[in-house]
C-alpha cells in the first residue's frame, strides 16, 4: 500500500510522539512548521503534519514504530540543504529530523575511522581530525551545514570527487532504522573489519534518498590529508579551449584533486562582484588543484601550465601560498553568490555528460540560452563532466518561469542523449521524477522498486520521490535557490 492521500496526524499520535521525545521535540504549529516545508529546491512546498526531533536511536525507532502502527508516512530530514526536493512532505506525515543527534561519538585515529551521529555536520568531521593530518573526503559545497545522514541519503559529492570519490566510497557502515522500526547495522561495525559477508546492503542503501529508513549513526573512513597543494587558474578565450585542456590534463596521466570551470557569464559576474582581475572577455576560467605529496608536485604543475598554454590560455596564475590559494578558490565558491547581481531567481541544474562531450554540451546550453532568451551561466565540475547550468529568470514573469523550465528540460534531455545522467550529486527527489523514465527503462526502474520493497514494503518512507507515477505537488512558488 502506498499512502497516496494526505494522512492526518491525529492528536492521539501527537501525544504519543511527545511521550517518546518530550514536548520540546515535537513541532506542530504552522508557523514553526514553515521551516520544514521545503529544502533548497523551493519550487515545490508542503507542510509536514508534524516534525519530530529525536535525540537517540531508540527514540527514532519508537517514533518510526508508532508511524508504522498508524500507517503514517515518515520523512527523514537532516539540515534540509538538498537541492531536489528530497525532503518534501508531499502528503504530510511525520518528518523525523535528526538535527539534535549531531555528535561526533568517537574518533579512532589508529584505524582512521570516525563514528558520528546522523545529524553531525559534514565539516565538523574534518575539523575534529585535521590536527592529526586526516580528513573526511566528501566535501559538498553545503558542507558547513549539511549532515552526514543527509549525505548518505543523496550520496553527496563535491569538488574533489574526481580524485577522492563520493560518499559511498568513504562510509564503512551505519545504523539504519527500517520503516517498521527495526534497527539494523549495514556494513562494517565500529571495532570490526571492513569486509562484510553477504550482500553490500550498506552500498545499496547509500543514495536511496531516505526511502529505506532513517540513518542514525555512521562509521566514516578518514584518509590522510594531502601534504601539499598546487592551485592554478587558467584564463581561456573559449570553453572549447578550456575543455580541451581538461582532456589533455587527464590524457597526460594527471588526476587533479579538483578541476573546475567557469564560463564567460559567471566570470563576468564574479569579476563585477569581487574584482579578481579576470579579463571580461575571457571565454572560460579553469581552476586546477593538484594535491598529494610535495615531491613531484611542482613538475606536475609545470606540465599543467604547459597544457593550458598549448590550448591557448592567455594567462595562467599559480597560487604562491595558502592565501593566494584561498583567493583563487574564492572566485569559484562565490560564483553562486555573484549570480544574485544578474538575476532575482535561478534554477541550479545538475546534469552529467562524459567528459569528452563537455564542449558539445556547452554549445547546446548556449543554443538553449538563445532559444529561450534566458541567460544561462555555467560553473561546474569539469573533471567529472558534472554541469551546474544556472538558468536565470524572474519569478514575476510567468512566461520566464515557463521558458526556464523548458530550458532545464532540454538541457537534462541532452545530458541523457549524450550518455550522461540527469543528476550527478543533487538527487532525483521530487524535482526530477519525470526524467527517470527518460534515463531508465521500465524494467530498470522496476528493479529499483524491487530493492525498495526489500527495505520498505509499504512504501511509507519518504513517499512520492524518485519514481514516475509519484504524486506531484501542484503548488508553484519559485524563490531564490541555493548554490551547488
Amino acid at each position: 500500500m502506498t499512502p497516496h492521500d494526505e494522512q492526518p496526524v491525529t492528536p492521539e499520535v501527537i501525544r504519543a510522539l511527545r511521550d517518546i521525545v518530550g514536548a520540546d521535540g515535537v513541532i506542530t504549529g504552522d508557523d514553526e512548521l514553515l521551516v520544514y516545508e521545503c529544502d533548497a529546491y523551493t519550487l515545490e512546498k508542503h507542510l509536514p503534519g508534524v516534525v519530530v526531533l529525536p535525540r537517540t536511536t531508540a527514540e527514532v525507532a519508537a517514533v518510526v514504530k508508532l508511524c508504522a502502527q498508524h500507517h503514517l508516512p515518515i520523512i527523514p530530514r537532516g539540515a534540509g540543504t538538498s537541492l531536489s526536493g528530497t525532503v518534501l512532505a508531499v502528503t504530510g506525515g511525520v518528518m523525523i529530523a535528526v538535527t539534535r543527534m549531531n555528535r561526533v561519538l568517537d574518533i579512532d585515529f589508529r584505524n582512521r575511522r570516525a563514528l558520528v551521529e546522523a545529524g553531525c555536520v559534514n565539516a565538523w568531521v574534518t575539523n575534529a581530525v585535521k590536527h592529526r593530518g586526516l580528513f573526511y573526503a566528501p566535501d559538498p559545497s553545503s558542507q558547513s551545514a549539511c549532515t552526514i545522514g543527509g549525505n548518505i541519503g543523496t550520496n553527496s559529492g563535491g569538488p574533489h570527487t574526481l580524485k577522492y570519490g563520493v560518499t559511498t566510497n568513504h562510509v564503512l557502515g551505519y545504523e539504519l532504522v527500517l520503516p517498521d522500526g527495526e534497527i539494523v547495522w549495514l556494513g562494517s561495525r565500529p571495532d570490526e573489519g571492513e569486509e562484510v559477508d553477504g550482500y553490500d546492503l550498506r552500498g545499496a542503501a547509500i543514495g536511496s534518498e531516505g526511502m529505506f529508513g532513517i540513518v542514525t549513526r555512521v562509521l566514516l573512513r578518514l584518509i590522510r590529508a594531502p601534504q601539499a597543494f598546487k592551485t592554478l587558474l587558467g584564463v581561456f578565450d573559449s570553453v572549447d579551449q578550456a575543455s580541451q585542456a581538461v582532456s589533455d590534463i587527464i590524457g597526460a596521466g594527471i588526476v587533479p584533486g579538483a578541476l573546475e570551470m567557469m564560463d564567460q557569464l559567471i566570470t563576468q559576474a564574479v569579476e563585477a562582484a569581487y574584482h579578481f582581475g579576470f579579463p571580461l572577455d575571457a571565454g572560460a576560467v579553469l581552476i586546477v588543484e593538484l594535491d598529494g605529496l610535495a615531491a613531484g608536485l611542482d613538475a606536475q604543475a609545470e606540465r599543467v601550465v604547459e597544457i593550458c598554454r598549448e590550448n591557448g590560455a592567455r594567462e595562467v596564475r599559480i597560487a604562491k601560498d595558502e592565501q593566494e590559494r584561498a583567493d583563487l578558490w574564492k572566485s569559484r565558491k562565490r560564483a553562486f553568490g555573484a549570480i544574485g547581481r544578474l538575476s532575482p531567481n535561478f534554477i541550479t541544474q545538475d546534469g552529467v555528460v562524459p567528459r569528452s562531450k563537455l564542449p558539445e554540451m556547452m554549445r547546446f546550453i548556449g543554443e538553449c540560452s538563445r532559444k529561450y532568451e534566458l541567460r544561462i551561466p555555467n560553473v561546474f565540475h569539469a573533471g567529472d563532466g558534472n554541469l551546474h547550468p544556472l538558468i536565470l529568470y524572474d519569478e514575476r514573469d510567468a512566461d520566464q518561469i515557463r521558458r526556464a523550465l523548458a530550458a532545464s528540460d532540454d538541457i537534462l534531455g541532452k545530458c541523457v542523449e549524450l550518455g550522461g545522467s540527469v543528476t550527478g550529486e543533487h538527487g532525483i527527489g521530487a524535482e526530477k521524477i519525470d526524467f527517470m523514465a527518460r534515463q531508465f527503462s521500465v524494467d530498470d526502474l522496476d528493479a529499483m522498486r524491487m530493492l525498495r520493497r526489500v527495505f520498505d514494503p509499504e512504501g511509507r518512507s519518504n513517499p512520492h520521490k524518485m519514481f514516475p507515477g509519484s504524486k506531484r505537488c501542484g503548488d508553484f512558488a519559485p524563490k531564490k535557490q541555493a548554490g551547488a
Partner: protein
Amino acid sequence: MTISPATREELAALVRSANERHSPVSAPDLTRLNRVLEHTPEDMTVTVEAGCQFDELQKQLAQRGQWLPLDPPVADDLTIANLIARNPSGPRRFGFGTVRDHLIGLQVVLADGRLVRNGGKVVKNVAGFDLLKLFVGAEHSLGFVVEATFKLLPRPESECFVRARCESLDDARQVIDNVLESPLTPSVLDLHNDPLHGGRFSVVIGFSGSYAEVDWQLGRATQLGFGEAAALDYEQRFWESGADSPRRCSVAPAALVERLRTLDGAAFIARAGNGTIYFHGDATLPQPALPSALIQRVKSTFDPNGILPPPPSA
C-alpha cells in the same frame, strides 16, 4: 549443464524459460560475450562485455596508458563477470580500493529473464538506487551480469615495493604503525609470514605514482627499516600453496596482530592497512552479526523461485 549464450538476449531468454520451469541455472559461460565495447581514454571509463577476461581488458587499457586499478590474486581465467561476482582484491587495495569503488554501470539478466541496467557511463551519477553494489560479491545469486562500465585511472609512471623483515608480530606491528604515522602514502601495506626470506615475518609496502613521488617515498621508507627491494611474488606463492583455497577474516586494522596470534602459525597474508587476513588452516573465527533477514529478503525478492546460485555464505 552450463549455458553458453551467443548474445545477452539469448541468455535472457534461457533464464526466463528456466524461471518459468522453476529450474535452477548456474552461472553461464560468457566466452562469446567478451568484447571491450567502448574505451574513451579522455573520459577514463571503459564498457566491457562480462565474458571478457580481466587480463585481456588490462592489456587493452595499458595500450592507452590506463588501467582498472584492481589486482585480484588469481587473475588467470578471471572474467569480468566473476570479478564482479566474487569481488576479489589484492595488495593494492590499500591504495586503490575494491571493485565497488570502480564499477559505475552494469547490465544484468535478472532471474525472470529481464535485462536491466543500473548506473551509467559517467563517473558521477546519483540517479536512482545504487543496485551496482548488490551485484558486487553476490556470486551470481541475484542475476547474471552481462556488461559492466568501470572508471579507470592512468597507469602509474612508477611502482616500487620494499620489505622490512621482522622477528616477531610485535616488531611487525611497530613497523606498520611507523608507516601509518609517517607522511608516506603507500598503495600496498602487507604483512605476511615468509620463511623463504629468512625472517619470520615481512612487511611489504609499495608506492605507485610519479617517479618523483615514488623516489621520495623510497628514501623515507629506508629510514623506517625498509631496506630491501621486494616484489609481490609472495602473493602468487601463497595463493598457489595449500590444498584448499585460503580463508578470509577481517578485523579493524589495529586488531590485526592480536587476530594473527590466534591463527596458530598458519601461513597468512594480511592487508595490514585494511585489516583483511587470508590464511591457510582451520582456526575457528568469531562470526560477526549480519542483517540476515534483510539479506534473505533481497534474495527472495530478486529470485523468488530460487533458480539462481545461492547467496554468498557467511
